[in-house]
């Protein structure tokens, strides 16, 4: 449906037809004391020319940098075909194309996406996506509380390596529903969760969350943790990186019974970094708890003439039907991102995705070896890692990153604020987009930065 502007005459005609004297009159139910008269803090509107220039200038600030930051969003090569297809009008600007009678193409795309996600996660059903990885954790925790019929607990245990931002978002979203999130102990040497130090005081948890790879890039003992969680009567929630699932064990195969719910950030699948979003949240689960899964689900069925077709299904869980008892108030998905991700996964296929994963692992390993050879830098954790590694510097991280940034290198994610106990720690990531030349550039620049900042003090 195209944009159809109204002239003042047309507006007047419509108002007279319904017997209203002004548009404001249509809002007169709103109590006067709630109305804002001025938006004092908002500057005057800019013209299209002015705003275009402003945006170009801002965008230029992000160009020309070599990025070694991971920490939940990863720079991978996106084949040109992905956005060439995804920006077609039928995908790009369609408005809620989810009616079975009008949108079989969109519904099939989502169904294919769901199928690919179940293949990657080893679980039975996927939804059509959530907003992002962080809110996905909140939804997964709420789902576990509903689905874990044997437990009245609202205590959620998080493995030591669960993304701190995800935890804060989950706490914010679920605060009024009484969920608590506790962090399990980290083994400082290996960088993974220390189950031997884990004691349950009080109520057993309703769910245990494992992030694999962890926020630190390390690989957790997922089988042992999954079995332990199930022994406590808890459901197991897996936070996953979809690229890593091309090489790591699928959560559906963790432990004796497999994870119950998988969630995570889908951005690595063909979605650009774009200053933090839009991204999309992955969610999949075992079939026996599918009715507690939030979000849209596309199903395949046959029509009146027996022909195959696709439709939204299990909608009685959603808020437009179930209202306050719905599984969530999300009644949408990230359709455009999911379309891009589906095209990305189709173009790469399982072998291509595996190559992306393994190349990323290899480049990070090379970078870690190069950098930890520099005096003043050491690798912190001994556990095997995926495509990120934690390094400790002999001085504060911030100033060093600034020097690197001045050389157009984004050197990594500063862990000092969220993990002060790790000291001057830096999380570094090298994906398949980083060539050996890039790695050498980084190592040389870092060595020089340390040399220079030492000279300053």
């Amino acid at each position, binding site marked *: 449906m195209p944009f159809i502007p109204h002239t003042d005459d047309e507006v007047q005609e419509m108002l007279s037809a319904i017997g209203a004297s002004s548009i404001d009159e249509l809002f007169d139910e709103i109590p006067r004391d709630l109305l804002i008269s001025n938006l004092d803090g908002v500057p005057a509107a800019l013209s299209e020319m002015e705003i275009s220039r402003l945006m170009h200038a801002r965008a230029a600030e992000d160009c020309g940098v070599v990025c070694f930051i991971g920490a939940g969003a990863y720079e991978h090569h996106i084949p040109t075909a992905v956005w060439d297809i995804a920006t077609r009008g039928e995908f790009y600007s369609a408005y809620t194309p989810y009616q079975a009678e009008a949108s079989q193409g969109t519904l099939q795309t989502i169904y294919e996406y769901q199928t690919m996600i179940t293949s990657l996660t080893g679980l039975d059903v996927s939804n059509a996506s959530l907003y992002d990885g962080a809110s996905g954790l909140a939804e997964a925790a709420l789902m576990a509380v509903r689905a874990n019929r*044997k437990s009245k607990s609202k205590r959620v245990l998080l493995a030591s390596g669960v993304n701190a931002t995800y935890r804060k978002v989950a706490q914010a979203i679920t605060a009024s529903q009484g969920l608590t999130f506790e962090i399990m102990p980290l083994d400082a040497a290996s960088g993974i969760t220390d189950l031997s130090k884990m004691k349950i005081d009080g109520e057993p948890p309703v769910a245990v969350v494992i992030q694999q790879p962890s926020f630190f890039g390390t690989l957790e003992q997922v089988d042992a943790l999954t079995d332990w969680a199930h022994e406590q009567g808890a459901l197991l929630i897996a936070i996953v990186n979809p690229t890593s699932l091309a090489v790591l064990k699928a959560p559906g195969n963790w432990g004796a019974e497999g994870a119950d719910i998988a969630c995570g950030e889908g951005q690595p699948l063909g979605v650009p970094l774009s200053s933090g979003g839009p991204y999309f949240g992955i969610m999949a689960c075992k079939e026996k708890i599918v009715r507690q899964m939030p979000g849209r689900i596309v199903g395949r069925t046959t029509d009146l003439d027996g022909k195959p077709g696709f439709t939204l299904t299990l909608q*009685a869980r959603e808020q437009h039907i179930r209202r306050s008892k719905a599984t969530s108030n999300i009644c949408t998905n990230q359709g455009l991102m999911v379309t891009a991700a589906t095209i990305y996964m189709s173009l790469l296929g399982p072998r291509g995705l595996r190559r992306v994963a393994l190349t990323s692992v290899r480049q990070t390993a090379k970078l870690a070896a190069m950098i930890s050879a520099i005096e003043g830098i050491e690798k912190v954790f001994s556990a095997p890692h995926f495509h990120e590694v934690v390094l400790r510097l002999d001085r504060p991280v911030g100033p060093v990153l600034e020097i690197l940034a001045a050389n157009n290198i984004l050197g990594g994610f500063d862990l000092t604020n969220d993990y002060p106990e790790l000291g001057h720690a830096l999380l570094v990531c090298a994906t398949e987009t980083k060539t050996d030349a890039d790695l050498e550039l980084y190592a040389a620049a870092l060595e020089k930065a340390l040399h220079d900042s030492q000279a300053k003090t």
Partner: protein
Amino acid sequence: MSELPGDLKYTKEHEWLRQEEDGSVTIGVTDHAQSALGDLVYVELPEVGQDVECGGDMAVVESVKAASDVYAPIGGTVIQVNEDLADDPEKINADPYGDGWIVRLQPSGDAGDAMDPDAYQAFLDELDE
């Protein structure tokens, strides 16, 4: 509309209760309810051993267009649930007073304002007007 079985009591929420010889109470939803819901696709049953309060949530019946709560018309402990409904929720549509029974409770109190068949029929007639 089928005849209302004479040996049952009825509630305003369109549930029926049958007093069993062993003191337990069997509960289901009425023909009026199943007709309003449409073809049922899923029934969420309580756990055996679960305690329910009079008027509290007991089960959920789901059709393609709605998911409705079934409230406990009487407080007590769930001693049996109709497992057949997991595979055949349509039993509630086909035989709401027989094979479509939902839960059997050991009651802890009395059945609140349950009506006899004539009173429920009158209540239904009023709704139709």
